[in-house]
Every structure is written in C-alpha cells, then in structure tokens.
C-alpha cells in the first residue's frame, strides 16, 4: 500500500542523472535536493502553494460556518421537507461532475469570474456543503440534546446555547470536517483548470497539470512537485485520521 508514495519520494530525492540510470536503485545512494531547487526555479511554485492554501482554507472556513447551521437544524428539528432536503444533500454526491462542468463555466463567465480566485472559493464552498452537513449532522446527533436544553433552562437562547455549549463539545468533529473539506479543495483539479488560466492565480493541481504537459519527461522535478503537493494532505490526514474515519462511517451508517 505504501510503495507508490515511497517510490515517488525516493525518486524526488535522487540526483537528476540517477533517476534515469540502470540498474534502478531502490535506495538512493546520494540524496539531493536538486529536483526541489529545479521546480522552484522553472516555475513559480511558491505562488501556487500560496494560492492553493488561501483558496482551500477560505473555502473550508466558509463551508464550516454554513454547514454548522444546516447540520444543526437537520439534526435537531423535524419539519416538512426534512427528508427531501436530506435526500437532496445525499444526491449531490452522486451527480457526475462532467455534466455540470460546461454550464458552470458559462455561469462563471457571465459573472466575470473566470480567472478570478473567487470562482474557486465559491465552487469549493458549494461542493463541500452537502457532505459537511451530513458529517456534522452525525456529530451533532451524538451529543444529547439535553445538553443544550439545560443551557436554555439557564436562560441561554438557542443560538448562544449552540455556540457556548454544543460547539465546544463538537470541536474534534468540526476540525475533522474542516480538514476533510480542506483536503478535497486542495486536490481539486477540473474546475480549477476550467476557471483559472492566469499564471499568478494558478493552484497547485493546475500548475502540476500544465507542468505535465510542458515537461513530460522531467520526472525529477515532477516527482518533487508531486511530493510537495501531497505533503500537506498526508500530514493533515495523519492528524485527523481517527476522527475522519469515525465521522465518515457514522454518517454512512445513519444515512
């Protein structure tokens, strides 16, 4: 299971000429960072990293704010249309993205949002809302409603009970939902390729994509780029693994 990641990391740490020599070395004889130097030299890699960080973080934060409310209501209230709304959220997970892609492009271009970071922030927020709602709803359902009822007896309003009592208990769940959204946004490629073409606005996946098309054989620099793109998600995943796995499976069982 680990081998592909090991292999790309090892490749990225080999000096250029060792990558293409025989016999293949499974353990690098010399470690070199020349591939990493090269990728920052031939492209504006730090700018792409910055763009990806900014867009993913902002979109995930907005998602959390929106989804905490929708999830809370979906977990605590029963009302007309409740089931249909839940179904509507679930169904988004099954729509094939390629059908919507062209109409989304037309929408964005009519709003003059092509080559504008806002289009990605908007779309990444939208895409993650349903799943985050489903995940957070599962976390809310695990907290007994007697908790906020007690707070409301003490004179809290519903909203302040939510923020003072429930949210603090929920923090691990919220953090893992945030990380989940961040990872998805960080990895997103197709919308970004459609919407962003300007060099200074490119996100990491878009940059890697044009990189592949330009320097198809430069596996040294490409492996370095891949490792750099992968590190944040792997680290975050390692931190939040337990909670995400829990949340994911709980949500699925309840659904």
């Amino acid at each position, binding site marked *: 299971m680990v081998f592909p990641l090991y292999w790309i990391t090892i490749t990225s740490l080999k000096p250029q000429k060792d990558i293409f020599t025989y016999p293949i070395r499974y353990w690098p004889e010399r470690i070199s960072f020349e591939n990493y130097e090269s990728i920052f030299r031939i492209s504006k890699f730090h700018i792409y990293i910055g763009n990806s960080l900014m867009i993913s973080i902002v979109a995930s934060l907005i998602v959390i704010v929106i989804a905490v409310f929708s999830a809370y209501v979906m977990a605590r209230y029963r009302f007309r249309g409740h089931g249909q709304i839940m179904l509507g959220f679930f169904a988004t997970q099954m*729509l094939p993205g390629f059908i*919507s*892609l062209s109409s989304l492009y037309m929408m964005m271009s009519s709003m003059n949002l092509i080559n504008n970071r806002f289009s990605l922030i908007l779309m990444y927020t939208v895409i993650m809302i349903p799943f985050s709602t489903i995940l957070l709803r599962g976390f809310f359902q695990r907290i007994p409603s007697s908790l906020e009822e007690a707070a409301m007896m003490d004179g809290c309003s519903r909203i302040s009970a939510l923020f003072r009592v429930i949210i603090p208990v929920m923090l691990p769940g919220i953090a893992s939902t945030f990380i989940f959204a961040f990872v998805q946004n960080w990895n997103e490629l197709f919308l970004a*390729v459609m919407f962003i073409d300007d060099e200074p606005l490119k996100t990491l*996946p878009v940059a890697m994509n044009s990189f592949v098309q330009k320097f198809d054989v430069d596996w040294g620099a490409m492996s370095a780029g891949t490792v750099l793109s992968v590190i944040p998600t792997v680290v975050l995943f390692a931190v939040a693994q337990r909670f995400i796995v829990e949340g994911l*499976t709980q949500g699925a*069982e309840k659904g």
Partner: protein
Amino acid sequence: MNNRRIFIIGSLLPALLLVLVFTYYPFFRGVVMAFQNVQIFDMRNIEFVGLQNFEKAFNDPKFMSALKNSALWVFFSLVCQFVIGLTLALLLRKPFRGRGVYQGFVFYSWALSGFLIGLIWKWMFNSQIGVINDLLLRIGLIEERIGFLSDPKWAMFSVIVANIWYGIAFFAIMLLAALQSVPADLYEAADIDGAGGVRKLLNVTLPYIMPTIIATTLLRAIWIFNDPTIIYGLTNGGPAGRTHILSSFMLDKLYTAAITAGRRLSASL
C-alpha cells in the same frame, strides 16, 4: 413557534440556496444541453435538436469504446477493491501491536488526489525505467519490458490496477466500521454452537454487515463511474483513446473545445 420557523429557515437558507444554484441548476442545464445544439464557447444560436446528439454519440466508435471501458472499469475496480478491502478490514479488526500505524498506512491513499495518484503510477508503469517493469523482470515473471500504458493490450488493465489501489482504503474503512459494529454475543453464540472461523464469517459476519456492503458498493460504483481523475493523470485516454471511460471522454471533449475556442478568440483579436 414563529421563532422556531425563522431559525430553521435562516439556518438552512445559505446551504440550500448555494446547492440549488451552483449544483442542481448547472446539472440540469447540462442535461438539457444534451438535447441542444450548443457551442459552449459561442452562446449564440442555441436550438433544440431532439435526440440528434445521442444519435451522433452512439454512432461514434470512440464513444462506444468509452462506454464499454466504463463497464469494465467499474466492474473490475469494484470487485477487486471489495475483496481486498474486506480482507484488510478483517485483518485489522482484532487489535495488535502497531495496528494504528498500519491502519494509517492502509488509509492514507484516501487523502491523495486521483490526479497525483495517476502521475505516480504513470511513473511506476514507465516502459523504460518504470519500477514495475524492473520488479517483474527481477522476479522473472516477464522477460522483456511491457509498455503498460502505451500497449493497447495492457493499457486498460494498468489503469484499472491503479484505480483498484486507490479505492481499497475506502472499502476497508467502511467495512472495518461495519465489522466493529457486529455484537460480540453473536460470535459467542456461534462458538457455543461449535462454528469454525469460516462458518462464522459466512453465517454471522457477512449477513450482519450486508446492508453496509450493499450501500457502500452502490455508492462506490457511482463514484468510480463518475470519476475521471486517475485516467486523466495516467493516460488521458491514450493510447489513441483506448483507455477513455465515459467521464474522461466527455472531459477531454470539453477541454479540447475550450482550447479551440480560445484559439479562435485569440485569432480574432
């Protein structure tokens, strides 16, 4: 009572509005476009053309091959991911030393993007200096290098192998959770009846987790069908369109249209 209603509507409104406008609307618009004559980057002269587009598609051998590939892609990915995922879940069920670390290793692929996975496997499948060819040569399983991604005989197979690897984690996670929800007294009862390991698996475990298996498999089938990222990173449909599945085929058409439209635009400037 009125307060309650305001709170519900106010809390749901942003989520519902955004999802309706930017998820459902473009989706249905896309479906409608299938019946229209649309040049995506030239919005004049849109008209309904009935089933013409479908007729064109079904007469296009590339479309038909993508359709067939989609079926192969979903079926083999799903079966292998399920079998390996279930095996891993069964192995990880009982606590052992280092299980947490091991679990992390099994699941991390889930955090990577399909596109990067595609690139990594493209490098490993490389016909000249790829590590997979090298390993197979060393073991003596093959005598000369295989062009895993360039040989039409092998290309679809290789793409599916990468996809299997990518999806195992998801199955393992879902099935592991289901396994842990099986009540222990069911096994105790089976022990009293003198059931062996295999019987317990077939008569206790599998029936109990069957709903999860069905739900996970269905969801997964749809996702695998919809997701072109691995193919995009690995082959982008090559050689000569042989590894296109429906979603990657459509994506490719769209990007080609975007590029030619861009050219037309810049030519007119």
